[in-house]
């Protein structure tokens, strides 16, 4: 098995923990894994991405354009930004909730998040849109968006891991008091009604 995955979003959204959870699950399954992360200045509200490569046969930590099996997008615009990496027939899981950049709030740039979702709908066949606001409301926390998205990614079948693998990883990586919340978050998208 080999899978190339990109996680993308805005600094502070929890992409790094999500990347770590996938890596932990892969390690436990003895699947070779390499990742590359954005760390540094971009974490202050900039565009961030993680490249993950599961399986044998690759050397580079970065993935080439058109080689990605799955994009897990924490933000619509950031997902569109990474779309050229997706291979033909690849899957995309995206959170519906935009993060407005300050530049747009003060009128120095435009950002139409609905247009991003429309663009994704038009150009990605295997698209899962996760209603992040609904998830936050039902789960009682917006902070577990990363785990909700991982649950949706599981459903895409392109993660190369099982629900049990991820549950174990969550147990290893997440503090005890947040465990129940994270388990709920992980299964939130397993039911079809919560994603389209």
């Amino acid at each position, binding site marked *: 098995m080999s899978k190339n995955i990109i996680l993308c979003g*805005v*600094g502070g959204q929890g992409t790094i923990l999500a990347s770590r959870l996938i*890596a*932990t699950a892969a*390690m436990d399954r003895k699947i*070779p*894994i*390499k*990742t*590359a*992360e*954005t*760390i*540094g*200045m*971009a*974490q*202050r*509200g*900039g*565009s961030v991405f993680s490249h993950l490569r599961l399986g044998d046969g*690759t*050397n*580079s*930590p*970065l*993935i*080439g*354009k*058109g080689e990605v099996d799955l994009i897990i997008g924490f933000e619509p*615009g*950031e997902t*569109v*930004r990474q*779309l*050229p990496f*997706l*291979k*033909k027939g690849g899957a995309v899981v995206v959170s519906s909730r*935009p*993060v*407005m*950049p*300050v*530049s*747009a*709030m*003060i*009128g*120095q*740039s*435009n*950002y*139409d998040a609905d*247009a*991003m979702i429309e*663009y994704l709908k038009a*150009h990605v066949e295997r698209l899962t849109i996760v209603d992040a606001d609904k998830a936050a409301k039902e789960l009682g926390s*917006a*902070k577990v968006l990363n785990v909700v998205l991982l649950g949706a990614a599981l459903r895409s079948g392109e993660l190369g891991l099982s629900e049990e693998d991820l549950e174990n990883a969550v147990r290893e990586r997440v503090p005890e008091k947040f465990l129940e919340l994270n388990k709920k978050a992980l299964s939130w998208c397993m039911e079809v009604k919560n994603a389209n």
Partner: protein
Amino acid sequence: MHKEFLMGNEAIALGALAAGVNLVSGYPGTPSTEVLETIAKRNPGNVYVEWSINEKAGMEVAAGAAYTGARALVTMKQVGLNVASDPLMSLEYIGVKGGMVVLVADDPGPISSQTEQDTRTFGMFSKVPVFDPASVAEAYEMIQEAFDFSEKYGTPVFFRATTRVDHGYEAVEVKDPAEYYVNKPEGFVKDPSRWVIFPRLSVKNHALIEKRNAQLKDILSDYPRNQILKEAEPAGCRKGIATHGVNFMYTLDSLHGRDARVMRVATPFPFPEKLALDFLEGLDEVLCVEELDPVIERALTFICGKFGLKVRIRGKLTGDIPPSGENSMEIVGNALTQFLGETAGNGAQSEGGNVLPQPPALPVRPPVLCAGCPHRASFYAVKAAMRGKKTIYCGDIGCYTLGNAAPLDMCDTCLCMGAGIGIAQGVGHIEPDTKCFAFVGDSTFFASGITETINAFYNQADMTLVVLDNSTTAMTGHQPHPGTGRTVMGQIVEKVSIEKVLRAIGLKVVETVDPLDYALSVETVKRVADEPGVKAIIFRSPCIAISKPKGHSRVDPDKCIACGKCIRELGCPALILGEDGKKAKIDTSMCTGCTLCEQLCPVKAISGGNKNDTAIPGEDLQKGGRHE
């Protein structure tokens, strides 16, 4: 041995521990920071670790340890090496007794730096041998070899990784602490003919260094990580690829069965000449796949000239590889296709990415100050106080460089650590009618602001020094510094007071104020900026990442008149437009309740925040009081 999923910098740290490192010093800087942090975290108990106040201090501390026979590691980013270059240039002439590795993290892109300088070139300039790892797992092994090499040849060595190795992750087979090499330093042995640099010693040692480095070219030709991949090479192969670091990985993944002889250079200086001759044998053309400087390209071009070889060397200097910036799989893949053609054994990859129409305008996201960041309040107060006056705001390196962005627009210059003070002074000497401000962070003040302040004070400058004291080294991930009262080894120590340092220099006006008190801050800036000479304001309020918010502010939609002042003037990421697209709303998941917007709102429509009154527990914060 056991397996761990490690960041490159963690692997380097564990490799140094396995090599028996006795002392580690450094100054934080992306992408190098995690090396020293991991050493501190995984310290078996016998390693001395410190965050030095700057790279020069770190280099000297490591040199001292290496003089005793200890194994020493000093860590920094590439621009930090500029600060440390004074001791390093001389240290190469003196040499070391214990192994000493200078870890420098280069930042192609640059992603988080001022320059794209290449430490491989610095190796040539300083005559210090360079190790250039290609992967996380290799870095773990290679740093251990670097220590052995340094000790064997009595020279400091560079261990130069780039972002994709430093911040890449891989599962790595690592030693258990019981398997670590134990280095017992002999101790410093007095010998002025060895340790005291005088011109006579320099003349003698320079000759020895040149002789040694010439020999190292041959020795390093046999270093297994300098290698030629000939296995896949078909008979009569006429084309070669020479590469290094993570670009070696990009090259392997981009060959897709196409025919070429590949050479990987792991020690760009001294350059493995014999190996290169072996590589060039029978080739017509070589493409050098490099990031940053054309180091291998120049070396191969030189070798062809020296030995009269008719091999065409291509790369950055011939326009085949971009001259600057970070390489990607696409850049390397396209360059290989140009060079080798599509005639592949098992099919060159040609489909590329999804062919997509132009997407709608993508969000523009320059990094910004966090919601609730006290720097925003400090900048806003100075801006408000100086409205209508001719000013210059000289910035510096740290989170507060982000004060340049709209709508604050409070960073007119930024050059390097500490430079804002000198620049403000220089502008003031030429433009006496300009109100000159220099903004410097607390860690940066200790790193390189003190000497500049003395210079400005003694040389009769007229300027306002603004110290943005958030009690941490925020941008690089909250390392302690002399103002924090703790060390990376966990000791609680006496703090160095910024106020006392400034007063000791001789500044008559040194005022400390909480920037989240808007009216008082504006009043203080107005008053202090009118004083003659060099005067200082210390804005003290902790970084939001190290203090717990006590509440969130909320906008009362019935009171909000949709004037947009809060959003337009503060640029706080937590301030957004409400559902009606006109009135302000606060994203409570980001808001820290700093209350700055509450104080600014003309109709008092925002409330509910609760800023920390005494910024730092135990700190004698006097509001607006004069400290003389």
